[in-house]
C-alpha cells in the first residue's frame, strides 16, 4: 500500500524542474527583468513585452504537455517494476 519511494522522489524532482522553468519564464522574465529584456527585439516586438504577453503562455502549454508525457512514462516504468496490487483505477 505504501507508495514506492523512488517513484515519488522522481515525481518530486520532475515537478521541481518544470516549476523552475515556469518560474524563470513567468515571474522572472515576464516581470522582474522585463524592462531589461525590452532592450532586445523578438518577432518585431520588445522581447520582454513579447514574453509577458505571448511567449510565456506558449511555454506554459508546452510545460503541461511535457509533464503529462513524462509522468505517463514514469508511471509505466513504476508499474512494470511493481504491478499495482490495490485495484488501481
Amino acid at each position: 500500500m505504501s507508495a514506492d519511494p523512488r517513484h515519488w522522489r522522481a515525481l518530486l524532482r520532475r515537478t521541481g524542474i518544470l516549476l523552475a522553468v515556469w518560474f524563470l519564464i513567468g515571474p522572472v522574465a515576464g516581470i522582474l527583468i522585463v524592462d531589461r529584456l525590452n532592450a532586445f527585439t523578438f518577432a518585431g516586438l520588445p522581447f520582454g513585452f513579447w514574453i509577458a504577453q505571448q511567449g510565456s503562455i506558449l511555454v506554459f502549454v508546452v510545460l503541461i504537455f511535457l509533464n503529462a508525457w513524462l509522468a505517463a512514462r514514469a508511471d509505466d516504468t513504476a508499474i512494470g517494476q511493481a504491478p499495482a496490487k490495490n485495484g488501481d483505477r
Partner: protein
Amino acid sequence: MLSVRAWTLIAIIASFALYIGIAIWSRVRTTEGFYVAGRGVSAVANGMATAADWMSAASFISMAGLIAFLGADGSVYLMGWTGGYVLLALLIAPFLRRFGWYTVPDFVAARYYSNVARVVAVIAAIFISFTYVAGQMRGVGVVFSRFLGINVEAGVLIGMVIVAVYAVWGGMKGITYTQVAQYCVLIVAYLLPAIAIAFALTGLPIPQLAIAGTLPRLDGLSTELGLSAYSTPFTGFSRLNVLAITTALMVGTAGLPHVIVRFYTVRSVRAARWSAGWALLFIALLYTTAPTVAIFAKYYMLDTLANRPLVEVQAIDWVRNWMQTGLITLRDANGDGIMQAAELFGAAGLTASIDRDIVVLALPEIAGLAPFVIALVAAGGLAAALSTASGLLLVISSAVAHDVYGQILRPEARESERLRVARVAIAFAVIIAAWFGIRPPGFVAEVVAFAFGLAAASFFPILVLGIFWKRTTSAGAIAGMVTGLLFTGGFILLNRSVQVFGTSQPILGPFFGITAQGIGTVGMLLNFAVTIGVSLVTPPPPGHVAELVDAIRQPASS
C-alpha cells in the same frame, strides 16, 4: 441585407437552441452522472469544456479592454490566468482525480478527517463561486442591452432560464457537453474579428504576427498624443503590485473549485494530466489573441477619436450606439471642444470617457466589419458568460446538496433522493445568481479578480500541502483556510469600502504597496504559514490519512 439586430437575434437563438438540444440528449439518472458526468469525458473534450468553463465573461468581454487601457501591465491577466494551469496540472489535478469522489470539500474532509474542515471548504467554495457568478451575469446583461435593446433584467432572466434548463436536466454531463459547444462558439467569435482586423491593418491574417507591425505605430501614436508608450511596463501598477496580482491570479486559478472539479470528470489520472494541457492550449488560442485585440483596438480608437472635435466624435455611428447604453460618456474635461487622448482613456487623473468593458464588443463595429460578425461576437460573449455560470452553479449546488445534505445532514439518504436534492439546489442557485445579475457589483473583471484572491488564500495552500506534506493536520488546515479567507476578504472589503459600503475614503490603504487585486498572494502566504505552524504543534494525522496520501501518490495505470 439583414440588420445587426436581426443577425444577433438569429445567432443567439441558434446557439441557445443548440445548448437546449444538447441538454435533452444528455439527461442524467444518477448522482455520479449529475456531479462528475459519469467520469466518461475524454481528455480533449474535457479540455474544451474546461476552457469554456474557465474563460468567463471577464476573459471574453473585459480582458482585452483592460489590457488596452493598461498597456504592458495587462500581462498580469495574461500570465496570471494561464500560468496557474501549470500549478494545477503539476500539483493538484491528477492527485485529486486519483482521490475521486465528487467535490473539492470531499477531498478536504477526507484528507483532514473532519466535517468542520468540510464546512469551512463548503463556505469558501460557495463564497468564491457566488462572487464569480455575479460577474458573469453582468456580462449577460451588457450583451443583451447593447445588441438587442432588451433591458438588463430581462436579458439576465432569459440567460438564467437557459442555464437552468440544461443544468437541472443534465447536471455535470449536460454542462460539460454544452460547454464544449460554447467553447466552439466563443473561440470562433473571438478569432474571426481579430483575424479580419489583423488582415485589414497589416495584410497578415495571423493576429499574433500582425502586432509586430502595429505595436511600433501604436507606441509612436501614444507618445505623440502625450500618453506613455504602450509597451512600457509598470505605468499602471508598480513592479511589486504586478508580481502580487499575477501570483494571486495564478494561484487562484489552481484553487478554483469549479475548475478543479472538471478534472474529476475524465476517465483516468493520466487523462487528467493530458486534459490540463488541452485546456490551456484551447485557452491560449484566446489568450494570445486578446493582447493583439487590445493593441488593434487602442490603435483604432486613438487614431479615429483622439484630438478630434467633440461634435465630430459624437457623430460617429458606433460612438452614438454605445453612448445610448451609457458605456461611452464623452467628458471634455478642459472644455476646449476637443477630445484629448487623456480625456478618452482617463490618463492624468481624468475619468475615462470610454468604459473598458466595451472594447471587444465594439471593435467589429469600430473596424466596420460585416453585421454577422458583430452578431457572432454577441453570441460568443453569451457563450462565455453562460458556460462559466453553469460550472459555478454546479459547484454551489454540489456543495449544498452533496456536502451539506448528503454527507452531513442525511448521510443515509437514498440515491433518488440525493439526485432530487441536487436538482432543487441548482435551481435555487440559478435564482440567486439571477438576482446578483440584476443588481451587479462593479466591473466584471474586477469582481472576478477578487474571487481569485479568495481561492488563492483558501484552497491552494491546503490542497498542495495535503498532497505533498503528510504531516499537515486537520487543525492546521482549518486555521489556515480561516486565516486566509478572513484576511483576504476583510482586506478587500475595507480597501474597496468606497464601492462596497459607500464611504468617502477607503478605510484601509494598500498593504505595503499591494492593492486589493493582489492581496490574495499575501493571504496565500499567511495560509501556508498558519497551516504549517499549527500542524507542527498538533498531533500528526491518524494512520488511515497517511494511507490515503500514499494511495493518491501511486503511479497511475493507463
